[in-house]
């Protein structure tokens, strides 16, 4: 059993009010020195069987067609060690 992680973030040019709200709150909470915050999603997939190239290709397709909406989001697939 292996874990594959898919990170989905809004594209850089898209406004991210959630990240901004976090960033704006930080100084109030006494945390300085953070110049930007972006908030995205993290999916942890438990995969049955080996995570070979074929499996990864399938997961990439899944991320592209389903987990992310590529009109607004970028994604990244990685195998967790």
């Amino acid at each position, binding site marked *: 059993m292996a874990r594959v992680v898919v990170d989905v973030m809004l594209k850089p040019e898209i406004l991210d009010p*959630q990240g901004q*709200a976090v960033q704006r709150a930080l100084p109030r909470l006494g945390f300085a020195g953070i110049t930007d915050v972006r908030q995205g999603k993290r999916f942890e997939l438990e995969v049955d069987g080996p995570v070979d190239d074929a499996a990864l290709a399938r997961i990439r397709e899944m991320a592209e067609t389903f987990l992310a*909406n590529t009109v607004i989001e970028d994604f990244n697939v990685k195998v967790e060690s």
Partner: protein
Amino acid sequence: MTARIGVVTFPGSLDDHDTRRAVRAAGAEAVPLWHRDKDLKQVDAVVLPGGFSYGDYLRAGAISRFSPVMGTIIEQAKAGMPVLGICNGFQVLTEAHLLPGAMLRNTALHFVCRDQKLTVESAGTAWTADYTAGQEISIPLKNIDGRYTADERTLDELEAEGRVVFRYATAGPAAEGYGNPNGSLRDIAGVTNEAGNVVGLMPHPEHAVESLIGTGRTDGLAFFTSVLNRLVTA
């Protein structure tokens, strides 16, 4: 014989019941459609209602878009059948790429429920023929993922082709329902496809068909009469 208008129920649809009532109020026959059925029961048009299909988990509309009924609707829409997506239905239509763009979390990050002023930008679609371009209407809006987004090129194209159907009217006080409620680019509240048969919008015309209920206005009824007139004269 009157027109048959299908209203889809996905798991988590909320306004299917009201939408059927609005369809009947306009004089058409309302036909319930179930997400698991590919069969559209010979309807002449389809409405995808508001709600939180699949809880809006993942992204609003992202899971419903893959339901069996959507397979058929996508085909039929491309063949010219009138399809209207309201709120969650609009989100489904963008996820299904029947309409351009995507919907994001409102800039204020809250759910917003208000009586919203809109400007009708195009009376040239299947669902807006009974309005006149430039007309101001007021119908309820309620969403949390209603920020319409598309890249600049797409937006320019939509404008150039007259495919922006509704805009949030901003020339008045917030207390009266003016203003862009969710940060939608270029104040866009609704758009159509190239052929004008598929329309999506965030506000809820089906909640504005009875004088006693909700906001007490009936500005939403013309959506349903528009499509009905088109179908019976066609």
